[in-house]
């Protein structure tokens, strides 16, 4: 499992390097971009932890290692697209700036080509992410033999309650 994750992280570094170059990547600010990649993996594990915790709270005996594997299998195909679309937002370094960016994205836009692309792709990515998460729930319930309805309630609870706490703690 560790080997697979190391390969995935190395590939993500290579794949996102070209995108980072367009955002002014240089040898001087390499630490900032490395920390962004690490933050993405921390977010990934935070969501898995939240789902795992939610399942446990609802009395469903989830195994963390298997849940991480299933989440990785389901999410990794869409992750590059999510990363590319999220890059402008990830460049913000503090919570108020990020919230300000999100607010401006939902209210007014400038006329740059990048903003147009982000505006058009963002709702599609959100809808796709929701359906990918639905696939994750189905795979979890099928793998462990849990009732699908109970699994939905458990993961909904875990992700909605724990993920914001993890995000605030991280910031």
């Amino acid at each position, binding site marked *: 499992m560790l080997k697979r994750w190391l390969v995935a992280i190395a590939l993500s570094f290579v794949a996102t390097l070209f995108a980072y170059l367009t955002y002014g990547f240089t040898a001087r600010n390499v630490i900032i971009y490395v920390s962004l990649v690490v933050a993405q993996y921390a977010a990934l594990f935070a969501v898995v932890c939240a789902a795992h915790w939610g399942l446990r709270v609802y009395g469903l005996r989830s195994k963390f290692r298997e849940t991480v594997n299933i989440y990785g299998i389901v999410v990794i195909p869409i992750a590059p697209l999510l990363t590319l679309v999220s890059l402008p937002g990830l460049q913000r370094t503090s919570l108020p700036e990020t919230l300000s960016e999100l607010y401006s994205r939902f209210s*007014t*836009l*400038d*006329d740059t080509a990048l*903003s*147009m692309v982000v*505006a*058009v792709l*963002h*709702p*599609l990515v959100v*809808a796709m992410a*929701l*359906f990918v*998460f*639905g*696939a994750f*729930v*189905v795979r979890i*319930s*099928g793998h462990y033999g849990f*009732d*699908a*309805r109970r699994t*939905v*309630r458990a*993961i*909904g*609870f875990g*992700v*909605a*309650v724990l993920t*914001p706490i993890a995000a605030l703690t991280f910031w």
Partner: protein
Amino acid sequence: MLPKRGDAKSPAIIALALACYLAFWSLLIWGPIGALIAAVLTGHSVAIALAVCAGCVIAAVLVRVVGHGILWGHRVAYAVVCLLMFAATAFHVWRALASTSSTAIFAASRAAVFFCLALFVVVLTVRKGAASA
């Protein structure tokens, strides 16, 4: 092949229900907390904050009912989601027509996505031979 209505193993239906349950817990827990923090930070009256809290709780209960209905295959729940999607589409179309330049593109893209989602839920709602839970 599209999933049958009431089929709890379908990722599409699970995604719809999951969105409802995420909204339920967010509105129930983070909505009131956010309203109170905003009231403290901005200096608004406590009455307004409490009204927002009450609104969040009522909305959470409604969303929970819709989510439960989706999971158990009740046609009314799908119809509610459908209407919400069409309402969101209409709002964004209106915003696209009322604005210019990038904001119009922004609103039009959202209108297109909401319209596609609405059509998808319509298919789930009226699907012939749909299973009842």
